């Protein structure tokens, strides 16, 4: 039985590897194109940040002032990035966009509120980077001179104000003094982001090999010769899906390694991300986490490959498979990045959604979430979906069932039954 699996696996691996489309999409694209895009995007962000930082940020002081607030105000006024504006209704002007920021004391915390609109939120992040990088020392000294101890001092934070949500504020950047209160977005490690983005290549890496092991077999009529072999068709399917999974996993891995290398290069050079250094890309994983990540990655490769084989088993020519698989591929590509949403976590609801649940499990393992029942459910769900997809693909491939004709037959049968019922009535 295993001889069949081995032979089919090696044959499909060899046959697909010699296909130039498979070669390009498995090795060339993930190794070159996406890292190039990463460099391009970084360049664009840096260019944008440079132009943004050249503009001065207008701010107003709101509410009663005290010495701490005045101190911060004085520090900001010294800097070319900031321009103070006198206004009577600072909060209203912030909402109207007349000022970029409002300096205010809230309880025993000093805040620089900025608008939460995307453009300004980006600006807030830039401000925070500037402040955190250049003014940290100055602020700390200022606070110290006013008698605030470092350990339990009042903090200074840049916050964004959601003007549409009745004055609720949401912090988008870290505080500078005192205990760090990072939000979930900041908890996303760049390495985890790269890992999740490399999952996109699992779909692309599986696409062409799955076409080669299904639709191309029909086009060249090699499926007929496979049908004539005195071996288990389930083992043939297993050989096929493991071969496609190998391409998917290698493709994702090549993509991750190349993007990781490029990201390390970009971060080490860029002044844009002073808070991110090469250290942020370091893996600080326990061996059990590393094993869990590899297992999760392979499980995803298997699931995506099984779904792609199922999608392409409908097609009888390579061209139709290329056209038809665009939609399922798009869905497969869209799901993993959803795991980057800060509030989306693996729980009793999300654990049932294939692909996304695996990605969330990957995120959970990376973040050090201990092994729990959701991991078991995700594994079972993924294996069950893979099994179902491959079982259907096996019928379409080996039982010579034309899905179009089968569907037409079912519709005709239903119409016939309805007609019969109507006649009786």
């Amino acid at each position, binding site marked *: 039985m295993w*001889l*069949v699996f081995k*032979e*089919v696996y090696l*044959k499909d691996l*060899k*046959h697909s590897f*010699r*296909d130039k489309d498979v070669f390009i999409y498995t090795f060339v694209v993930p190794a070159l194109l996406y890292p190039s895009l990463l460099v391009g995007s970084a360049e664009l962000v840096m260019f944008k940040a440079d132009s943004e930082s050249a503009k001065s940020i207008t701010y107003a002081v709101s509410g009663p002032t005290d010495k701490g607030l005045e101190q911060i105000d004085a520090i900001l006024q010294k800097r070319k990035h900031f321009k103070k504006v006198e206004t009577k209704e600072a909060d209203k002007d912030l909402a109207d966009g007349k000022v970029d920021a409002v300096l205010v004391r809230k309880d025993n915390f000093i805040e620089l509120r900025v608008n939460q609109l995307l453009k300004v939120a980006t600006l807030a992040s830039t401000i925070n980077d500037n402040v955190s990088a250049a003014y940290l020392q100055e602020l700390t000294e200022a606070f110290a001179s006013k008698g605030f101890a470092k350990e339990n001092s009042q903090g200074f934070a840049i916050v964004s104000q959601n003007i549409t949500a009745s004055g609720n504020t949401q912090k988008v950047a870290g505080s500078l003094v005192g205990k760090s209160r990072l939000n979930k977005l900041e908890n996303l490690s760049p390495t985890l982001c790269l890992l999740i983005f490399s999952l996109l290549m699992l779909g692309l890496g599986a696409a062409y090999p799955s076409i080669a092991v299904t639709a191309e077999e029909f086009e*060249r*009529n*090699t499926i*007929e*010769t496979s*049908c*004539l*072999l*005195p*071996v288990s068709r389930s083992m043939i399917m297993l050989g096929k899906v493991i071969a496609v999974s190998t391409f998917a996993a290698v493709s994702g891995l090549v993509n991750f390694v190349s993007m990781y290398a490029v990201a390390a290069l970009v971060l080490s050079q860029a002044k844009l991300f002073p808070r991110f250094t090469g250290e942020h890309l370091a893996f600080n994983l326990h061996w059990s986490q590393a094993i869990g990540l590899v297992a999760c990655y392979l499980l995803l490769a298997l699931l995506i490959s099984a779904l792609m084989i199922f999608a392409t088993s409908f097609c009888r020519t390579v061209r139709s498979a290329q056209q038809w698989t665009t939609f399922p591929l798009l869905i497969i590509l869209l799901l993993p990045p959803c795991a980057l949403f800060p509030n989306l976590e693996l729980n009793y609801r999300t654990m049932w959604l294939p692909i996304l649940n695996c990605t969330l499990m990957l995120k959970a393992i990376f973040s050090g979430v201990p092994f729990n029942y959701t991991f078991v459910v995700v594994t079972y769900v993924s294996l069950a979906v893979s099994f179902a997809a491959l079982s259907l693909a096996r019928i379409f491939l080996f*039982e*010579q069932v034309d899905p*179009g*004709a089968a569907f*037409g*037959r079912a519709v*005709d049968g239903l119409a016939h039954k309805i007609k019969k019922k109507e006649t009786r009535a």
Partner: protein
Amino acid sequence: MKLQVENLCKRFYEPARGEFYACNDISFEVGQGEIFGLLGPNGAGKTTTLRVISTILKATSGSAHLGDIDIFKDPDAARRAMGFLSSSTGLYERLTPREILTYFGRLSGVAEPALKEKIESLFQALDFKQFADARCGKLSQGTKQKVSIARAIIHDPSLMIFDEPSTGLDVLATQSMHEFIKQAKSEGKCIVFSTHIMSEAEKLCDRIGVINDGKILAQGTLSQLRELTGETYLEEVFMALVRKYELVK
């Protein structure tokens, strides 16, 4: 081994036509060292019949036995004892003939030391050793058909099924295909052969079954068919049988 096919039916569904029988109540027998030809026009049901016998398609009803093997109940045993060859060579374009023969040989249960020798002897016998390590996609149609023959006989089957094997071949390749079929017959293999070329059937077949509209209209040796229709040439025999069927229909 003897092939016995009884009341074989295969029903299909097409949205435009609804349900229809591609082969309907087909029965015939082929003995050891005999060539049985299925002769009929395109769409008569020849290929469907052969595909059902070779287990590629599932029969709607009927039975087929190869010696003691019930083909439909024990398809794996039947597949081990039969070789199927069609006009579409069905080769993996990016594998070499040697890789293809090794793959099919191993999966057909040919033991490893014997397999290597068998592959080498097939290269010699079919005269394509020089292309043994070239990718199949780059081979000529004739050479592809030779590789396809080698693939079909790598496990030394006792039943050979040929589905219009000479379609698309030039005169020389067709000639060598005919030689190969005759040689298989002389080795005592049971051969089922489908064609729409009258001269080919006349030249190769010991017995002929004339098939049209999914049904065998008549079967027997060429002289028996001549006697039945009163015609001399196979083409006229065929037309007479078809006309008679149309009239009855």
